[in-house]
């Protein structure tokens, strides 16, 4: 065996803290190492060709690269190996940058550590075994989870590329949060006017199949071959028969608070989510329906001329195969009643910005009028409070919800335009307007009269006057003093939060959530759309707070990732899979229940013992299913189960080298 060691300076990143000459010199003395060299930038073309030449000149068959994290450049070096006709898994990386030079300051000690890390990599690579990946077919159908603007966009893009898409939405209509909005910043386009055409396009697209009032119940499989169970909730209305006339809704005697209007209006037990709903077919909310509670009523069925009402409908489990999954599950707005100082839920005139948005919306509960919920009169003085539950480590979410600055500016503008004479005060900590034309929009809001006061509000309390106004106690950083404003209406810019079931769904999909419950991308900068699970892509706010254009761009990005996968038509299987040494395996199958991918099964092997043929059970690994976690290998008593790239022998060698 001829191992070559290459030590990278990474410019000054490694060289400043690690004595690369000493590391190289020491490497030359390590067992089986026949060549060692230090290079300024190994990842550069020059560095790569240096390795290539050394492989040729010194007939190297294993390479150890001491450089940055393998998570950074492992594939770069693996490709080089392949180009040189060597197995990609004959290269081993010693992480002397992220795990050494960047985290230490004492050059002497860092050098000792770097030498140890190289020694460890040399020991490991000495026992490396060649690994290959298989080509697996891809099911050319995508699943988009979530029918908000991000989900719709992703579905449309994939469908336009000619691939079938299933779009799953938990509500009875697609549209998501954007359907609730009145206008959109910074152009003040009417939200419905730009969203509705997209909804209709999605519903009528020949490549898109909608599953509304449905949820993902189970996911198995892997990139290219996901097996997804969709739970289609019973709508109790036959969509084939229903013509959307709305008679059932009119006649339904049961009224319940309308979630779409944040509870500020009533809807019926049989309802369509909003007037422009797609599909525009009502559903029966069984929790509230009188018929389902008592077995009596049945008015909707009586009045329906097409006989579309079907009380006997059952929830249905639909199983489908997909090649790629786009997650666009969006967010929820935090109900800010946990922050007692803002009196939300205690005073009727303290509302959330979404409630204001609904009021401003012409199809909303007040048909576009802004009123004080306490008395129905027009407010004159309105106080906006920013960062309610956002950027709050004490009693909220530590992150910035990103869109509140702009939508509050939008609200002040809309109020000023629609109702001249109203005064808008905005208490803020920072105004963040990073985005195209956003600063100009904020400027416009100020010029139109929105009065920004820098300082967070500490208390909102009833003023106790005849109008039942509220007193907002804050501080103006400019004037350097406490200020109090008697307001008619207080609007709280509440925090965007991950969906409460994000973690459950993430668990099914094999993607992780960050500390705040948003899905984690594969790389913060360079792979913001992909996830750790291959074939699962992110779109929209499920990944973190975003505005509409950002969500739409990410959705298109996610769509393209799926399209690339489908165009390729094949995926490479994980090369570092578990493998069974059949000679050692007893076939005890203790490993079988450990495997999260059900990749382990039992097979019979025939062997000859003393001239006689004998059948014997052993474990076997389905390489297409195995993702290479090694949980089975960690358990195997006899050491028959091993993991490619991380064999017991290799890991033992690493441990022994230290």
């Amino acid at each position, binding site marked *: 065996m001829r191992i070559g060691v290459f030590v990278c300076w990474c410019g000054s990143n490694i060289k400043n803290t690690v004595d690369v000459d000493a590391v190289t010199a020491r490497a030359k003395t390590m067992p089986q190492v026949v060549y060692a060299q230090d290079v300024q930038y190994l990842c550069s073309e020059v560095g790569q060709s240096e390795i290539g030449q050394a492989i040729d000149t010194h007939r190297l068959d294993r390479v150890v690269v001491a450089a940055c994290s393998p998570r950074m450049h492992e594939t770069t070096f693996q490709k080089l190996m392949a180009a040189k006709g060597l197995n990609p898994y004959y290269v081993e990386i010693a992480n002397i940058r992220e795990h050494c030079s960047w985290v230490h300051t004492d050059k002497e000690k860092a050098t000792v550590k770097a030498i140890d890390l190289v020694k460890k990599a040399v020991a490991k690579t000495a026992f490396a075994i060649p690994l290959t990946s298989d080509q697996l077919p891809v099911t050319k159908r995508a699943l988009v989870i979530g029918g908000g603007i991000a989900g719709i966009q992703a579905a449309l893009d994939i469908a336009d590329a000619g691939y079938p898409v299933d779009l799953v939405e938990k509500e009875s209509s697609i549209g998501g949060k954007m359907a609730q909005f009145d206008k959109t910043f910074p152009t003040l386009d009417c939200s419905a006017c730009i969203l509705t055409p997209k909804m209709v396009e999605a519903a009528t697209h020949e490549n898109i199949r909608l599953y509304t009032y449905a949820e993902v119940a189970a996911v198995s499989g892997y990139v290219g071959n996901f097996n997804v169970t969709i739970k289609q909730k019973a709508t109790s209305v036959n969509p084939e028969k229903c013509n959307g006339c709305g008679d059932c809704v009119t006649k339904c005697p049961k009224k319940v608070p309308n979630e779409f209007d944040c509870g500020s209006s009533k809807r019926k037990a049989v309802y369509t989510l909003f007037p422009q709903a797609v599909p525009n077919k009502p559903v029966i909310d069984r929790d509230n329906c009188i018929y389902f509670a008592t077995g009596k009523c049945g008015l909707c069925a009586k009045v329906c001329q097409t006989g579309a009402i079907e009380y006997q409908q059952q929830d249905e489990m639909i199983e489908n195969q997909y090649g790629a999954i786009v997650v666009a599950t969006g967010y929820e707005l935090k109900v800010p009643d946990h922050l007692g100082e803002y009196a939300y839920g205690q005073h009727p005139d303290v509302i959330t910005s979404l409630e204001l948005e609904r009021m401003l919306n012409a199809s909303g509960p007040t048909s576009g009028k802004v009123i004080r919920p306490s008395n129905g009169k027009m407010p004159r003085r309105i106080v906006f409070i920013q960062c309610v539950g956002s950027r709050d480590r004490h009693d909220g979410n530590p992150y910035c919800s990103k869109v509140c600055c702009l939508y509050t500016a939008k609200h002040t503008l809309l109020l000023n335009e629609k109702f001249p004479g109203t005064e808008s005060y905005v208490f803020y900590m920072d105004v963040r307007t990073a985005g195209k034309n956003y600063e100009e929009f904020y400027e416009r809001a100020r010029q139109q009269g929105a009065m920004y006061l820098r300082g967070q509000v500490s208390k909102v309390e009833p003023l106790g006057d005849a109008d039942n106004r509220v007193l907002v106690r804050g501080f103006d950083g400019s004037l350097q003093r406490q200020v109090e404003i008697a307001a008619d209406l207080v609007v709280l810019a509440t925090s965007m939060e991950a969906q409460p079931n994000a973690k459950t769904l993430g668990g099914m999909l094999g993607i992780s959530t960050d500390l705040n419950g948003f899905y984690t991308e594969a790389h913060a900068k360079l792979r913001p759309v992909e996830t750790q699970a291959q074939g699962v892509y992110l779109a929209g706010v499920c990944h973190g707070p975003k505005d509409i254009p950002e969500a739409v761009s990410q959705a298109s990005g996610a769509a393209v990732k799926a399209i690339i996968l489908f165009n390729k038509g094949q995926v490479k299987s994980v090369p570092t899979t578990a493998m069974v040494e059949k*000679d050692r395996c*007893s076939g005890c199958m*203790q490993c079988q*229940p*450990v495997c999260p991918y059900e990749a382990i099964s039992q097979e019979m092997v025939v062997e000859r013992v003393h001239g*006689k043929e004998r059948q014997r059970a052993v474990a076997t690994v389905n390489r297409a299913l195995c993702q290479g976690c090694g949980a089975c290998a960690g358990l195997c*008593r006899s050491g028959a189960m091993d993991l490619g790239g991380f064999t017991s022998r290799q890991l033992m060698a690493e441990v022994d080298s230290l």
Partner: protein
Amino acid sequence: MQSIMASITQSIQQTAAALLAAGEVDLVLGYTRGERPHQSVPFVATTPAAAAQLHWDPFCEKALAPYLMEESYQNKRVAVVMKGCDARALRLMISESRVDREKLVVLGVQCQGMIPREKLEAAAGEPLHQLTLTWQSEGVELTGRKGSQTLSYEAVLSPFCLTCQHATPAVTEVDQIIAGSGEKALVKGKNIPPKEAFSDIETIEKMGAEERHAFWMQQLNRCIRCYSCRNACPVCTCRSCIFDRENPDYLDAAKNQPAQHQFYHVIRAFHVADRCVGCGECARVCPEGIPLHLLNQKLIQDLTQHYGAFTPGVDEVPNPLSCAGAHEVDPFGKEAKK
């Protein structure tokens, strides 16, 4: 009156003879009297006549299940005499594809508990060869040169048998139950909690860390790594043992290194952690008298305490170490938060 031991012996002999005579099995694996006094050893009867040598008494400790994996038993129809613990081990072996149940006729014995010979000798105060034993209902009557005395079974039985909940193999697991007539149980209601039977565990737990270490060093330093514990264990059923492996060498040839002993015994305990049937063979066969079973029992107690009761060879697989989930205790979460 015929003692229960004699009646079981007779029943085993008759059954074995009948099976062999009818050609239903090629051989019967059971026990016969050993050369030493009050000792029973494994015995294979291949003819009805030989079946008369089969024997049963409370000295049939040796677990027979591992023999079934041996080469000479392959492709043969075998009838095997099984105690409760053996039958549990057998069931594990079947579930782990180590033996083929189809080829077996399992004769489950209504086990009365096993008596360690040393314990008996110590209790009797006389060498075993001087003693004649009579199985009475209230205890064992010892007649020796010093006279005669009756010892309660609790005083002489193995602690493993005192805690045993499955002395008689489950009817569903065997082809035939061999029940003796007469007094049924040596121990009335064997329900001594493991904590009492293995009070050593608590004693050790109460020691300081250094003392514990010293205790185990003293014990393990005697280990000569003869692998008797492994070989006798009815659940050590691997086709090839990692300790025999040369590359990577989990153990090296040096047999005087405490670290190597620790390594061996920790790993051994782990390999049987969730599969130990509590027969106590490991400790019994140890030529150095190392209380190995304490490690097994400790792991069983931990598993039971934190992850719920699981009886290997009785409860359905998966075994506790083969499954894990979100609902389980997280002893590392809180600590990590600080």
